[in-house]
């Protein structure tokens, strides 16, 4: 893959390649550049990169330029400029900063190179210069979490009296807001008699979530369910409930499954979550880029599927890598 430079999409680039080197130009082959956020920082991103490379290698018509910004905005902007300069056919970007990359994305757009944003979106001011966003749908993750919670209450026969609390992500983050909105909109539709007692931010932080839950446990004598923006916070809440000796009576549901949540589910302490796979994320990004290049009608928000995972079906899923 990376060891070959013989690519050409159009007659002009084929000509340029032929002049530059003894290229054996293959028709229909495309070069896709990707600049990632920070590959080494967590195993989600590491797995993502490997999955992306594997998916590209499996496709004989795709060549890739795989770059990593190492979390450095300046480096990512430089990589965008490099990819534009190298005249790749499409650019996939995992933004280090949803605002700062907008001018660089505009530059690619002006150079006629389609841009696909992956995993987390850029700010709305940049939407005009982007062809598609490929990533998880946080609204759906929230509403599916509501369904998991409701189904469990029905199994337990308490769907008409259950009282729950919510621990959200960092205030102001789109992901946090969407996961909360999705949950709060869907819950009354499936379980109209469940009461949401309180909602407080846990800032994506396990310790913070534990403190929030400790306060909830003091404040409310009857809590039947806890919904948290991700499993990291959910496990924090679980720990608080275990310390208070009330974990047995509470259904814990998260909106993104982490390894800690998966393990807690295996122990039977945590009920369910939403499974978001970095492999699906990477493959969806590549496919979105290919669809855009093929001229297909790709929706602007091109979400990949994030299925429900509970104690009942967890053996269908691998333990999350993050």
């Amino acid at each position, binding site marked *: 893959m*990376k*060891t*070959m*430079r013989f*690519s*050409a999409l159009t007659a002009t*680039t084929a000509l*340029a*390649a032929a002049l*530059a*080197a003894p290229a054996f130009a293959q028709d229909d082959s495309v*070069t896709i550049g990707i600049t990632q956020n920070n*590959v*080494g920082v967590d195993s989600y991103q590491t797995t993502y990169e490997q999955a992306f490379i594997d998916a590209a290698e499996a496709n004989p018509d795709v*060549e*890739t*330029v*795989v*770059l*990593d*910004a*190492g*979390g*450095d*905005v*300046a*480096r990512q*902007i*430089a*990589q965008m*400029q*490099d990819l534009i*300069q*190298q*005249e*790749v056919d499409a650019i996939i970007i995992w933004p*280090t*900063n*949803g*605002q*700062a*990359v*907008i*001018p*660089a994305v*505009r*530059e690619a757009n002006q150079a006629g190179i389609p841009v696909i944003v992956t995993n987390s979106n850029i*700010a709305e*001011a940049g939407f005009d210069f982007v062809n598609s966003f490929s990533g998880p749908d946080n609204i759906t993750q929230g509403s599916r979490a509501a369904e998991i919670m409701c189904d469990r209450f029905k199994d337990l026969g308490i769907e008409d009296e259950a009282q729950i609390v919510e621990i959200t992500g960092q205030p*102001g983050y789109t992901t946090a807001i969407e996961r909360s909105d999705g949950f709060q909109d869907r819950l009354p539709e499936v379980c109209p008699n469940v009461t949401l007692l309180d909602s407080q931010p846990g800032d994506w932080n396990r310790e913070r979530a534990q403190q929030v839950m400790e306060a909830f446990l003091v404040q409310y004598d009857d809590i039947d369910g806890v919904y948290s923006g991700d499993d990291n916070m959910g496990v924090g809440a679980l720990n608080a409930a275990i310390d208070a000796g009330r974990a047995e009576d509470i259904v814990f549901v998260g909106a993104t499954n982490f390894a800690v949540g998966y393990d807690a589910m295996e122990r039977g302490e945590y009920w369910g979550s939403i499974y978001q796979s970095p492999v699906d994320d990477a493959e969806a990004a590549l496919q979105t880029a290919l669809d855009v290049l093929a001229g297909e009608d790709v929706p602007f928000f091109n979400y990949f599927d994030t299925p429900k995972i509970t104690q009942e079906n967890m053996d269908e899923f691998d333990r999350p890598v993050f």
Partner: protein
Amino acid sequence: MRRQGLARYFRSGAIWGFIVLELIFFTVAGAFLSNSDTGFLDPGNMLLLLKQSAPLGIIALGMTVVMINGNIDLSVGAIFALCAVVMLDSMNWPILAGLGDWAIPFAWGLALLTGMGLGLVNGLIVWKTGVDAFIVTLGAMLGFRGLVFMYNGEQPTYHLNWTMVDIAEAGIFGLQTPVLVFAACILGVWLLMNKTVHGRNAYPVGDNREAAVNAGIRVGPHMVWNYVLIGFLTALSSITFYSASGSVNPNDGMLYELWIITAVVLGGTKLSGGRGSVIATVGGIIAIQLMRKGLGFIGADTAMVNLVIGSILVLVLFLDRQLNRKSKQDLRI
């Protein structure tokens, strides 16, 4: 004597020879390893190289002056981020937001004042306390970074103004604004170091501080001015870069000080002071940027880039030491 002259000539030219080697290597390797349809030596790519060198390069000019003084400034990365925070945040202030696009020069001015002010703080502490510059600016690096985080927490600070982006991306003859600013700074600092008394005094201050004092140079204020200069250049670099991107993360600029010092040392400036060249520093910056760009071009990952540059730095310092020793032996004979 003649051979010493030769060695010296070799030293000052070495960085450019190294750049030529890099260019040849990446052109040849790129032909086999790169997926790109354009060559590495493509003029567009070379112009991009200059543009991408500008943010680090502008600061490195100031670092050269400070290091010739025998000092160092580890706080440039934090100053770089703080200036950007001030610049972008000030444009959201009601008093400036009302001015429309005329807010831009005011925001730039505020950023420059911030940079010079922080440089002044560094310089005064180094002068008045006599604490080693390494320690003072190490403290400043942490302290200024703390200010960045206090300003806006973990959140990015942003203000997207397309006029400002257009100014930052404008250009004459394909030379974009950052390249022009970089060129102007090179000329300015070169003139300062070669045509003014202040600049010529920088060498004796770094070479032998006591002798410089005895010669009547006011060493303290001299060093303070150079810290203000590096603060100014850091702010200018920050303006050039963030006018184009419009958003700053609180972590931005981390490790910049190390990249910059690496480039300055590659260019032959002595860590202990007394010797150094502005033009060779430009060579050092280009060599590093070329390495980053070239290794990306042939498909190496970021970790590999860091490993290679680190190895080359040690190798260069070793060679430099060998050359120096030889020239001294020549003198003895």
